[in-house]
């Protein structure tokens, strides 16, 4: 649905985004992560038709953002990182303004506004002036406004930045629901743990370029082929280290706790290796109640990529 090809954005002599290429499938959630100044907001603004790129192509389905911005805007919903609202409008008036501007009939407007306020849990605040809302509530009002014209593509810049834990969970569920209804969501966030459960794919940006893009597992595979497996035992089993060392692909084994009931081993093999290790341990009498590969977290990946780049820069 979203296709970005060779995107380059200059601010004067400064290159904010350089040779950026990525795709987002229809009905999926894509997370854009990266440190401050990586070019995430600039990329989202270019996707939202608010910034004309120096070079490159952006397509939303069949629509070219550069050549048909008016068409692109009809299917876009954009929410910036800092939530400006019309302070002296009421929350429902704020949403109604945009429903009206997007051409919704007056008969449908009210119900659509109510629906969006319901989705963002703001129904009880609909008559409050926007200026009286907390920052998190303003963010929710903004999300309601973004959804009011039923856009096919949602571009959300740091949507969870000001939300409390419950609102974050609600937002995650809402975005997953929207994605399951066929909407394409691109979200940038610093709250990396939020992206873990939310995103189907992620892109890691640094200095205006995309370092890695893909599912979390794919990126983990690319950045570090070694896999960590945790073995949980009901009782201590002394021969476990000797047994595991017989496998040449296993590079290290260590006990996680002093009771020696939890072990971790790292290997560079495939699923087949893990299956063989499991059957070997069970065969030797180890009482295993849990045997699981440790999932890579987005935070770990991000830190790993960051440190690799840092080392690369030093070299």
């Amino acid at each position: 649905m979203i296709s970005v090809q060779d995107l380059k954005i200059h601010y004067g002599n400064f290159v904010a985004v350089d040779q950026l290429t990525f795709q987002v499938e229809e009905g999926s959630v894509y997370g854009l992560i990266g440190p401050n100044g990586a070019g995430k907001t600039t990329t989202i603004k270019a996707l939202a038709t608010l910034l004309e790129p120096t070079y490159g192509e952006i397509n939303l389905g069949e629509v070219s953002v550069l050549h048909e911005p008016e068409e692109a805007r009809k299917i876009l919903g954009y929410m910036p990182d800092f939530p400006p609202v019309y302070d002296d409008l009421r929350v429902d008036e704020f949403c109604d303004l945009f429903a009206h501007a997007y051409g919704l009939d007056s008969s449908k407007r009210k119900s659509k506004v109510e629906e969006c306020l319901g989705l963002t849990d703001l129904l009880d605040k609909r008559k409050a002036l926007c200026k009286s809302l907390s920052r998190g509530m303003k963010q929710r009002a903004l999300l309601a406004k973004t959804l009011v014209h039923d856009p096919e593509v949602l571009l959300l810049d740091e949507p969870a930045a000001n939300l409390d834990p419950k609102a974050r969970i609600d937002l995650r569920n809402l975005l997953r629901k929207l994605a399951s209804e066929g909407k394409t969501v691109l979200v940038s966030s610093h709250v990396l743990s939020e992206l873990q459960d939310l995103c189907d794919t992620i892109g890691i940006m640094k200095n205006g370029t995309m370092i890695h893009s893909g599912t979390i597992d794919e990126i983990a595979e690319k950045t570090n082929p070694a896999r960590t497996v945790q073995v949980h035992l009901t009782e201590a089993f002394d021969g476990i280290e000797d047994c595991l060392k017989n496998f040449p692909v296993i590079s290290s084994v260590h006990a996680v706790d002093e009771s020696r009931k939890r072990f971790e081993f790292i290997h560079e093999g495939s699923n087949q290796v893990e299956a063989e290790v499991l059957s070997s341990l069970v065969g030797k009498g180890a009482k295993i109640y849990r045997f699981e590969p440790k999932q890579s977290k987005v935070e770990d990946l991000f830190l790993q990529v960051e440190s690799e780049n840092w080392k690369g820069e030093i070299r």
Partner: protein
Amino acid sequence: MNPIILRGVRERLRIKHLIAAGLFSLIITSTVYFSAYLNEANGGWNYNPQTGQMEQDEPSPVKGARHAFTFLLSLQGFYLMFLGTGRVAAISAEEKESGLMDYQRMTPMNPFSKIVGYLFGLPAREYYMFALTLPFLLHCIIVGELAFENIVHLYFVFFSSVMLYHLTAHVIGLVVPKPRAASWVSRIVVLGLYVFLPAFGQAGISFLSFLTILPTYFGKMLPELIEMENSEYYRSNDMINFWQDVPFFGTEISPSLFTLIMQGLILAALLVSAYRKWRNESLPAFSKTSGLIIFAVFQFLLLGSLWPFFSEGKASGLLGENFSLSEAENRGGAPVILLFVQSVFFGLSLLGILTLVNTCCPDRHLHLKGAQRANRLGLPSIPMFADESRGTWFVLALGAMVCTVHAILLSQAVATDLFFSIKPELTAFYLPSLLLIACALYLQAARELWFSLGFWGFVGLLWITPLLASLVLAVGWEEKSLDTVAMLSSLCPILCLPQILASHYPIPIPDEHLHILPFGAFTGLGTASILAIVFSIRLHRKTRI
């Protein structure tokens, strides 16, 4: 209803606002209006110079209403022109800074609907306050027996002025990137366009006077308002005489029609700019085509306004007054007046070129973008009229227009015997034209080589700094440093042009100083030519890279 207007009404006209603003408007308007009305309606006091005493007029409600009209109009102007313009400028800039304007930009509404929404929605409260003055206006028209035709003329121009001011403020909010800068620039532009530029009307460029409501007020309304005054002072008011029919080419045009034409042209230019900015913020305010059209209209208006002066010696304002006070005496000084008018013409044209170069010529970033896009589309080069294309041909076209108007006016001046006893040499045409084209070329090259800061820094350093230094020298060393003063000041083309022209006209200058003018003229001309050549070569090389 336009959703942006509806938003303005919802935001600024809630019950509490209606009560507060309504009370404010009614209290102020009724106090001012009835004070002025009752003062004259009950018989005003006037000084009689013949008796040397104050005398009371007969009570007259008609005079009272007519007297109060000007006060009412001023209040209406305060609500819509002062408060309303401030509101539009401030909110446009603030919304751009906060990102709220981006939300509006992303909606599929037509850009014109968005402009209309901002123009009428943002000052909704000010329009409401204005509306509350209408009963007073009705009273004024009925009791004061004012001619309906004059009122229609005046309020037509009043609203077109209001639109003009609001649109100027909105466009500046859209064009200038930072809100603080936008607020300052809007004040400067509103002052410049509607206060300083009209002052050039005194120098014979009459069309510039017609950017405000004043010509229609003084030309149409004031004669009616003071019709019943006994005082001869009012009847011989210079303001009334100045703003009667406007000389334009061989004809004369009514001030309100001329004001509407002028304001209509500026409104059209501002609308083009606002439309482009609403469509795409990164587009320049004007395309090259609209820049050329605007400049052609500007030159046409200059030509039409100056035509009566160059062909018949007739002019409006102070220029006309001075030139026709005593024709015989002024014959000796006619070339000086001609030089002054030509310098104003060239100065305004050059400022016009500077503005359009800054607006329509691409910076390096935009040009690069265009080159890459042309490459992708398989075009041999960027299309000539595209925003991204080099502006060399564009500034040459602008320069050619100015040179043509200069040639027409000069030939008119030569054809009459009002200005010259001996015909000036052809270089009086060529050298100013050469200077203007050289300046246009180096400005364009500088704009395209550097970004805004570099460009304006260059212009400031080249035009303003030597000028200030020459001022200090002139004050501190007087006649001893005249050579240096001429040389330094000639770096600013607006001051170089009079030096070029003065060295061709029979201007009374002491013999010992005769060499100074050609010296200054050739320094300025030489510098501009060298800069134009060097910068153009640099730009050409950059393009090839």
